[in-house]
């Protein structure tokens, strides 16, 4: 039973939305618990403040009933008078439909969660998406080159580089870069990495240089190696042999036939890479003092800004599900056999 492309897309999207919703449900169940502790202390401090204010204006302490009344009002305001499951549900719905509200502590200079994320996202795109583009271009170029002559010097170098860099912590390499280029060689001023904020485009570009270099260095080897493996797999197919036998020039065989045939997995990798870059990297951003998405999550965690953390988790999950669905759809578009497989349920 073959499925129409439209129906296939719809099936995938609905599927993705359900998975995302369940993920948010689980996360908000976890976060509601954290939030309860935090909101209770918030209510306590608000009540205390109110009692102090009341005592000053009325020249006498408020009665017990009045305090309880005020407390109940605040509890209602923060919805603490609702049962746990109901608050979890409300929180899930709010988060899912992008009503992220305000965080109690100030993170990145504002209470508004959307503003916090907007600031952080811009900076993360600046750093990580730029790096990702460099990685993809470098990876494809080197991967295709080394697939042409398997076992060559370039091929072996890339294999070894890929093996070494997959086991290398990116953030540690970052620490090393700072040590070498900032502390010992003194090429960049130390203030760029000892503090978060920098002003002026030239300084921002300078601050970007080391992290971009680090991220590219850690990732391009693995990328090139993956492309190489995909390409070698394709080059062993019969149609490449036919093309060669027909006398198609080698250049055209590689870029016209093999690369085109390998494009579905490569496009998937590109999508996952590009979308994945939007999440930033928590530890690398801490090491470089880069105020992006990862650092926002870390600061929110330290300040107990539950709503910010929840919204960020939602975005991370959203990006993952989105890229999964997009990859599935693209696969289905480029390779119609996949669609049949998805529909064939025994």
């Amino acid at each position, binding site marked *: 039973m073959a499925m129409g492309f439209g129906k296939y897309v719809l099936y995938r999207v609905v599927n993705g939305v359900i*998975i995302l919703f369940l993920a948010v449900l689980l996360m908000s169940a976890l976060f509601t618990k954290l939030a309860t502790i935090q909101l209770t202390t918030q209510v306590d401090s608000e009540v205390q403040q109110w009692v102090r204010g009341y005592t000053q204006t009325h020249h006498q302490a408020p009665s017990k009933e009045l305090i309880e009344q005020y407390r109940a009002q605040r509890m209602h305001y923060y919805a603490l008078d609702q049962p746990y499951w109901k608050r979890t549900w409300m929180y899930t719905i709010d988060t899912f439909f992008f009503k992220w509200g305000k965080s109690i502590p100030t993170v990145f200079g504002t209470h508004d969660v959307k503003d916090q994320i907007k600031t952080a996202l811009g900076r993360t795109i600046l750093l990580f998406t730029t790096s990702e583009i460099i990685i993809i271009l470098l990876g494809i170029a080197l991967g295709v080159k080394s697939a042409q002559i398997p076992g060559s010097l370039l091929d072996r170098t890339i294999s070894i580089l890929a*093996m070494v860099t*997959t*086991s290398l912590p990116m953030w*540690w390499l970052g*620490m*090393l870069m700072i040590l070498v280029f900032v502390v010992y060689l003194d090429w960049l001023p130390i203030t760029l990495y000892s503090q978060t904020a920098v002003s002026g485009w030239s300084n921002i570009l300078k601050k970007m240089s080391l992290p971009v270099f680090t991220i590219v260095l850690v990732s391009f080897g693995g990328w090139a190696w993956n492309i190489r493996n995909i390409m070698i797999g394709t080059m062993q197919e019969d149609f490449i042999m036919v093309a060669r036998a027909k006398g198609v020039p080698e250049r055209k065989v590689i870029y016209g036939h093999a690369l085109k045939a390998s494009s579905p997995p490569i496009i998937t990798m590109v999508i996952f890479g590009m979308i994945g870059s939007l999440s930033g990297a*928590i530890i690398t951003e801490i090491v470089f003092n880069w105020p992006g998405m990862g650092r926002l999550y870390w600061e929110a965690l330290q300040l107990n800004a539950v709503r910010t953390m929840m919204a960020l988790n939602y975005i991370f999950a959203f990006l*993952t599900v989105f890229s999964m669905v997009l990859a599935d759809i693209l696969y289905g578009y480029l390779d119609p056999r996949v669609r049949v497989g998805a529909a064939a349920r025994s």
Partner: protein
Amino acid sequence: MRWVDFKDSVKRFWSEYKHQKSGMVGLALLIILVGLALAAPYITSHDIPEKWQTGQAWMTNPKNAPPSWENYFTSVSKAPQKTFTVHDMQVKSEKNGSMKVYTLTFTYNMRYDVPPKDIVLTGLTSNASRPQDAPKVSITVQRPPEKGVKYGTLTLLSETPLPTGGALQLAYTPQVKTLLFYWLYENGVYQLPMQIPPQLPMEMRLMYLNQQLQMNNTLYGYYQSADPMRILFGQITDGKGHLLPLEKIIYESSGLQGPYKFTVTIKAPSYVDVNLDKFEVAMVGRTYGLLGTDQMGRPIAIGLLWGTRVAIAIGLSVAVSTVLIGVLIGVTSAYLGGWADEFIQRFTEFMMSLPVLPMLILLSLYFGGRISLTQLVFILVLFGWMGTAKVARSMALQIKEQTYIEAARALGAGTGRIVFRHMVPQLLPYAFANIALSVPGAILNEAGLSFLGLTNPNIISWGQMLNAAHQNGATLNGYWWQVIPPGLAIALVGFVFVLIGVSLDTVLNPRLKRA
């Protein structure tokens, strides 16, 4: 699969694996690493994990000291750590009236431009119950001969009580500094407005000196900024018999190289038992051992060695569990098919959609912020099995169509038997390669969580060491020995497993073989 078949296939596999150069290198390195991990308690000592967090155990060590071999690469040589135990000293004991007097002598050969940072006395125990009974320690030092110096011998410490379990850090003992300034005064390095009457008892002379030092602003400034060790081990003449000005001695002194004879006198009332067995005098180095120390004085080399245990334990247990669980789930899902398969697949996708590091952070908060090793393994397995499950399912789908599975079903074999006896064994080669390849990821995750300070600080792991380094600002301060070794170790262990994994993959999956 029968035992004979199994043995046969292992043999065949080994004969092919033997020819994988990188795989054999990886295997050799792995054996060395496992050996080091197992030997760690015997090379160092068993109680390192208990001592690791307590500052006392490392008190005699310098803080943030670079490795000793750094001296070979710099023009200025810095003193390394040197500890004198009782066995390195000559011990004499005698009775002097109602007092017991122990005299310990040893010679420290100072051959460095920059002298030790401190001298620390530890390990003296006694059964003294009252504070006034505590053994009293005095130290005199005979410096190497220096032309133009009247008094080559000086008193460094005079009758200072050292209670049981206590320690004396001479560089931070005010009396030591005063005595050194007295010695400089005696040698005529500087003058005082009023001479100290020599007939006064020593204590009075010191008080006199202190008063005059505090009244004179310049002198007092020198006194405040002086490093006692640089005076003790420094030149006070220009080498031609002329005394240097005080300013030069304090700020620009270079080390006076040669033998320093230390005489430590311990006095105690005769009814007090003094135990000298563990008595130690540590010349706290400006450099330390193989890999230097961190901000608590803990040797990096020891942390590195013990970290091997955690890395291999975490790496292997997480990798084995995730891959086995992943294979089981994948195969079951493929074999059952239909709604069960659909459900398992959606669940796998659900787990994949959860962001890994944020969820790890969140879960470790739920376990109380500082999680133990077992909890860490549990969390890493919980978020690690999905990739394997997906691949295992797609491989199992192919196996499922094979005729022998059909035959087994026709013979009446149950689900469990088919999955475990016929399908899982087919996937084992893939599983082995995958186990090796997922070890680095597990180690990286552990390092990341430890770096963020979310694991139990009593675990000695490389991530914890990097966390300490980051807290210490090691990168910006240029303490390279705190940053580079743990990261290199992580990379090395990861690399070893990748080498093994890729070789396994090449043997078991010939499509990727190099042409």
